[in-house]
C-alpha cells in the first residue's frame, strides 16, 4: 500500500507552536496557518496537514454515488470529538436525522489491537535483538493515547455515534429546502462564524460548517445562479476572517459549466468524488485491488493561504476503500501488471467503457 507523499513548502517560518497545541484539534502549519483535521488521516497527509482555518473546501459530487457523504461524515465527527461547534445545512426536511449516521471514533482499546497486528508484522522483519526497543515505545504511546488529544481520529463507519455524545455538543442544523431565499442561511452562517472571529491573540476554539448538496434541485434557489455565487462569495469572505472551516458539496453535473467553474475558482481546496462502476472488466484489468474500491477521490486544488506556491501532488486521484469494512482509507492507484497475452496496450485500457464519463485516470 503506497502512501501518498506531499512536498512541504521550501520556506517555513519558526512559529511558536505552544499557542495552537493548547487547543485540541488545531495544528499549526507553514506560513502562519492553522489546520483542522478532515477526519480522514490519509486525506490530511495528502493535503499537507488538513484543512486550513479560514478556508473553503468544495467537494464535487457524483450523482451516481453518495461518496461525498463519507467525507462530510468524517469531517463532522472529527469536529464532535474535538468539541468544535458545528453548523450543518442540508436539503433534507429534517437535517438532524443525518446526525444519527455519524461514525463514532474508535476507542483506544480497539486501537491497541490494530497496532499490535501491524507491530507483529513489522516484528517479522526486525531482527530479534532490536525487538526490545520497539516493545518499549509501543507501550508508551498506548498509555498516552486519548481520543481528545489526537489530531485525527479513526472513525468506525459501521458504528453510529451514541446519542449521549451528541446531546452535549453545540450542533446547529438548518434545512436549505424550505428557505425561500439564501438570506436565512447566510444569516445563520454569519452569526455562527461571529464566535470564531480571528484576533491577534491566541485562538480560543475553532468551528466547522458543513453544507451538503448545495444547489440540489429541490431547493428553491436552484435556478438563481448569481444569487448562489453571491452567497458563496460572501461566505468565503466571512470565513477568511474566522477560525473555522467550511466544507460544501455540490453536484456539478446539474449546473451549467461556467457556473460550476466559477464555484471551483472560489474554492480554496477542491475535491471531487467519483463512483466506480461495479463490474468494469477493463478497470479490473488496469488497477490492482479493484474489487475493494468503493470510489475515487480526486484532489484538484489545495489551499494556498498566505503563499503563492501551488501544491503539486505526485498523484491527484486516489481510491477510496473501506479497510475491514469500517475505516475509510485513501490509496494511490496502482496499475496492475499488464497481461502480455491479452495484447491490449495501456492507452486503450485507460478509458472506462462501463462508466458514462469516460475520463482517464490520473496516476
Amino acid at each position, binding site marked *: 500500500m503506497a502512501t501518498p507523499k506531499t*512536498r512541504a*513548502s*521550501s*520556506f517555513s517560518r519558526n512559529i511558536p507552536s505552544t499557542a495552537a497545541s493548547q487547543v485540541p484539534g488545531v495544528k499549526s502549519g507553514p*506560513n*502562519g496557518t492553522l489546520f483542522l483535521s478532515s477526519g480522514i488521516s490519509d486525506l490530511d497527509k495528502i493535503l499537507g496537514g488538513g484543512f486550513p482555518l479560514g478556508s473553503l473546501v468544495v467537494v464535487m459530487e457524483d450523482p451516481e454515488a453518495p461518496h461525498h457523504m463519507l467525507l462530510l461524515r468524517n469531517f463532522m465527527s472529527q469536529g464532535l470529538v474535538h468539541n468544535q461547534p458545528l453548523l450543518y445545512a442540508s436539503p433534507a426536511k429534517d437535517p438532524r436525522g443525518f446526525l444519527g449516521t455519524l461514525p463514532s471514533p474508535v476507542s483506544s482499546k480497539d486501537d491497541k489491537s490494530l497496532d499490535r497486528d501491524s507491530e507483529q508484522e513489522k516484528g517479522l522483519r526486525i531482527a530479534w535483538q532490536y525487538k526490545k526497543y520497539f516493545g518499549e515505545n509501543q507501550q508508551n504511546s498506548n498509555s498516552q493515547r486519548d481520543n481528545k488529544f489526537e489530531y485525527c481520529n479513526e472513525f468506525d463507519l459501521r458504528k453510529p455515534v451514541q446519542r449521549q455524545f451528541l446531546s452535549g455538543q453545540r450542533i446547529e442544523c438548518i434545512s436549505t429546502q424550505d428557505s425561500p*431565499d439564501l*438570506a436565512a442561511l*447566510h444569516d445563520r452562517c454569519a452569526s455562527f462564524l461571529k464566535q470564531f472571529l480571528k484576533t491577534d491573540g491566541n485562538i480560543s476554539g475553532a468551528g466547522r460548517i458543513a453544507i451538503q448538496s448545495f444547489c440540489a434541485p429541490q431547493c428553491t434557489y436552484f435556478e*438563481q*445562479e*448569481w*444569487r448562489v*455565487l*453571491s*452567497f458563496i*462569495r*460572501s461566505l468565503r*469572505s466571512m470565513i*477568511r*476572517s474566522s477560525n473555522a472551516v467550511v466544507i460544501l458539496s455540490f453536484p456539478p453535473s446539474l449546473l*451549467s*459549466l*461556467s457556473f460550476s*467553474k*466559477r464555484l*471551483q*475558482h*472560489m474554492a480554496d481546496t*477542491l475535491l471531487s468524488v467519483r463512483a466506480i462502476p461495479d463490474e468494469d472488466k477493463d478497470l479490473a484489468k488496469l488497477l490492482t485491488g479493484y474489487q475493494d474500491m468503493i470510489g475515487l477521490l480526486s484532489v*484538484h*486544488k489545495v489551499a*494556498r*493561504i*498566505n*503563499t*503563492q*506556491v*501551488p501544491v*503539486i*501532488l*505526485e498523484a*491527484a486521484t486516489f481510491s477510496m476503500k473501506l479497510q475491514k469494512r469500517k475505516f475509510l482509507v485513501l490509496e494511490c492507484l496502482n496499475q496492475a501488471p499488464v497481461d502480455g497475452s491479452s495484447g491490449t496496450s495501456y492507452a486503450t485500457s485507460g478509458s472506462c467503457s462501463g462508466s458514462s464519463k469516460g475520463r482517464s485516470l*490520473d496516476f
Partner: protein
Amino acid sequence: MDNLLDRALGLDGRSDRWPLRGKLVLVEDCVETGGAFVIHHIIKRFLSPQSSAFSNNSLILVAFSQPLSHYDRVLRKLGCNLVAQRDNNRFLFFDMLNLRFPDREDAKIGSSVLVSLFEKIYNAVCALSAENSCITIVIDDIALMEVVANGSSDSVLDFLHYCRTLTSEFDCSVVALNHGDIYSSMEKPMLMLNLEYLSNILVRAEPLATGSVVDVHGQLMVFDKGERDRQGTSGSKIHNFHFRVKENSVDFFYPGGRG
C-alpha cells in the same frame, strides 16, 4: 535581475519611466494553474526601490479575492513590504471582501457598488497624480467583480472602460486578473472578448499539456500587442515559456531549459 517575464512585459529596460504606463495588462488563468503569481510579480517590480527611484510609484490594489494579510505575507517573502508602503502612502488597499450580501437579488445594487468603487478609485488617482505619482491599479479578480455586480457583465465592462480612460487621462497602468476557463464554454463570452480586445498585454497561465509536474508548474503565454502606428498595430510579440513558482521568487525558463 531580469527574467523572461520581465523581458516579455518590457520591464527589463533601464529607463526611468515605468514601462507599463498607460497600458492595460490582462492576466488569465484557470483552475489547474493559478495566475496570481504574475500579479504578485508585477506588484513587487512596481514597488521595488529601483522602479520608484525617480518617480513616486503608487499602487492601488482592489481586492475581491484575498485579505490584506495574505498579500502582505506573500509580497514580504518576495521582498516587498506592503504595510510600510501603505504607511508611506505609496500603497492603497481597497478591501472588497466585506461587501454585504444583498437582501435580495437586484442588478441595481450591484452596479451601484461598482459605480461607487470607481468614484473611490478616481478620487485616489486624482489625489496621487497631483503629487506627480506614477500609478498602477491592480484588480483581483474580475470574476468576483462580476459576482458582486450580480452577473451584470455590462456593469463590469463599463467599470473597466472607465478604468481604461484613467490610463489615457492619468497615464496609469491597470493590471487585472480573470479566470479564462469560466468563459470557455460560452458561445459568445462578450466580457472576455471585450477584455482581450481592450488590453495591451495579455498574459495567459495554463497547465502543461502533459500534466502537472513538480519542477514545472505550468506555461505562460505573453502577448504584447505593441504600439499602434498609422498603418495599424505593429511590433506585436508573443512569448512562450515555462515557470516554477517558489516562495521567494518565480523561475522562468524555456521548455527543456531547466537548471
